[in-house]
């Protein structure tokens, strides 16, 4: 039976590229696929493009490290690292390949996911862009929109592979799409073969977060996961009939078993019986998982239903500013000192007329990651950090707030530790996310594939 081996290369912008090199060198793969875009990555990239129109794509070590070895082994690369500017990313990779002497390398650039220039048109065409989570009319945020991108499926990437691309660069795609594309291309799956497409989506979902299916971020007995310093990224061997085995490259750390794979299977999933993607609605409750030897999990039985007639659009908008600062106190009475400092600061905000929409107090070492679920009262802690965070429409107020903390060392409760905090934190722009559905035809009609060939 025909099969294809596909490896994971990246789970987010900032992920380690070295396990990707292990996938290339010892994963015995034909393809490596990367998911570089978390929900808010486009907001960061949009800002980079505002400063320099040539930027707006994911810039990291991935291509400089991986392009040569992939070319040498004939491994094709698929990524959504194009971000908000896939043509810019295509030019960057093309220049890099030229400098490396990779003559003849073909780079496909997929555009059309960016619908920001078309929001007005879509509204006048009667498309309802209300937020899927909260409802509301888009006019309430229209003057603050930073980016608006539709999630594309695997089809344009399959087209790019058919055009002979060695590297496929897209912008916003559904996270598993980069992984599904080579399966469809190599195994000849039809676009209405819902069960096989659903199998491909589940496998893509298991690989899109890099080591999260091989023992990373494992909520079980994580202390038993071996070799996390050189953890292996997942590799899938996928058969023509949609059955597959998830494993990892020989000699790498981590663990692939039912526990690690199941955790990733439900990661960021809502209704497991209806995982909606542009290519198929996958039913994760139909899959059968079984261990198939050490670090191998076999996946069979996946079922899918027809794809939706709409595509999800993710819209980011400017939503005020965050100001934050930390001051730490030592035993004795660390918690009481931190609480007192919080009380002082809140009185000072009022006295200075600093207006905040929201003030959040967290005690690091006591409740900053558990909030109201924290146990005890923190009475005997060795040290506590007071973290205070504010939300404001006014950038200046967000910048002023942290300056009230250093004086506490002399003017407030004793034993304030000021070192090692990384200086005065700068205000950070907050980005609201707005999700809507648009008819897929409205997006697909503007999707384009350009091929760049390295000379």
């Amino acid at each position, binding site marked *: 039976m025909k099969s294809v081996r596909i490896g994971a290369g990246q789970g987010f912008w900032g992920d380690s590229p070295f396990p990707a090199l292990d996938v290339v060198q010892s994963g015995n793969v034909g393809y490596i696929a990367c998911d570089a875009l978390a929900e808010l990555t486009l907001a960061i990239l949009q800002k980079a493009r505002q400063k320099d129109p040539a930027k707006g794509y994911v810039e990291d070590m991935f291509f400089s490290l991986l392009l040569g070895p992939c070319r040498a082994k004939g491994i094709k690369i698929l990524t959504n690292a194009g971000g908000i500017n896939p043509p810019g990313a295509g030019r960057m990779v093309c220049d890099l390949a030229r400098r490396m002497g990779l003559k003849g390398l073909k780079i496909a650039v997929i555009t059309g996911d960016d619908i920001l220039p078309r929001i007005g048109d879509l509204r006048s065409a009667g498309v309802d862009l209300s937020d899927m989570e909260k409802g509301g009319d888009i006019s309430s945020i229209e003057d603050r929109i930073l980016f608006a991108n539709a999630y594309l499926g695997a089809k344009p990437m399959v087209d790019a592979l058919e055009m002979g691309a060695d590297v496929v660069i897209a912008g916003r795609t559904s996270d598993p799409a980069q992984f599904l594309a080579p399966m469809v291309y190599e195994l000849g799956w039809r676009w209405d073969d819902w069960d096989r497409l659903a199998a491909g989506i589940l496998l893509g979902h298991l690989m899109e977060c890099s080591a999260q299916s091989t023992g990373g971020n494992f909520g079980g007995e994580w202390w038993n996961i071996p070799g996390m310093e050189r953890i292996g990224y997942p590799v899938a061997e996928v058969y023509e009939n949609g059955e597959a085995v998830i494993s990892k490259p020989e000699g790498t750390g981590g663990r692939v078993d039912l526990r690690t794979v199941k955790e990733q*299977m439900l990661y960021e*999933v809502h209704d497991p019986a209806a995982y909606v993607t542009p290519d198929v609605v996958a039913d994760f409750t139909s899959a059968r998982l079984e261990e198939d030897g050490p670090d191998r999990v076999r996946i069979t039985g996946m079922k899918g239903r027809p794809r939706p007639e709409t595509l999800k659009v993710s819209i980011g908008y400017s939503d005020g500013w965050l100001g934050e600062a930390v001051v730490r106190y030592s035993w004795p009475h660390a918690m009481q000192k931190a609480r007192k400092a919080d009380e002082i600061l809140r009185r000072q905000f009022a006295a200075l007329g600093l207006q905040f929409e929201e003030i959040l107090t967290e005690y690091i070492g006591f409740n900053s990651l558990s909030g109201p679920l924290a146990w005890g009262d923190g009475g005997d802690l060795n040290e506590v950090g007071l973290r205070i965070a504010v939300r404001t429409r006014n950038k200046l107020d967000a910048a002023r707030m942290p300056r009230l903390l250093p004086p506490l060392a002399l003017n407030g409760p004793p034993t304030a530790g000021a070192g090692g905090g990384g200086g005065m934190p700068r205000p950070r722009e907050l980005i609201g996310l707005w999700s809507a559905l648009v008819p897929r035809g409205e997006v697909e009609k503007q999707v384009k594939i350009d091929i760049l060939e390295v000379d």
Partner: protein
Amino acid sequence: MPRVLLMDLAHARSGDKGDTVNIGLFPYRDEDYRLLKDQVTAERVKEHFRGLVEGEVIRYEVPNIRAFNFVLKGALNGGASRSLRSDNLGKCFGANLLRMYVETGEKQKV
């Protein structure tokens, strides 16, 4: 009735989408699936996360992998990129769910 921490019976992972958090909950032993099904209800999880989660909580059963998926709406102070919280991505919700106590008919061990 003896009671144990959910941490002793199950593992969990959480993640975010917009202002929604999901938590996958996985009993270590298949035979505990029933116990979790009876006791770790959507209502109880909603109550457990009071103060962190503003919206509804939905529970999906995933019997093929002996798991449950909890979807918590209005859980992230507006969503990762506009949240003031340290755990802006909701990565710790899974661990926080495991702070729940459940009643067992017998003495349990992982």
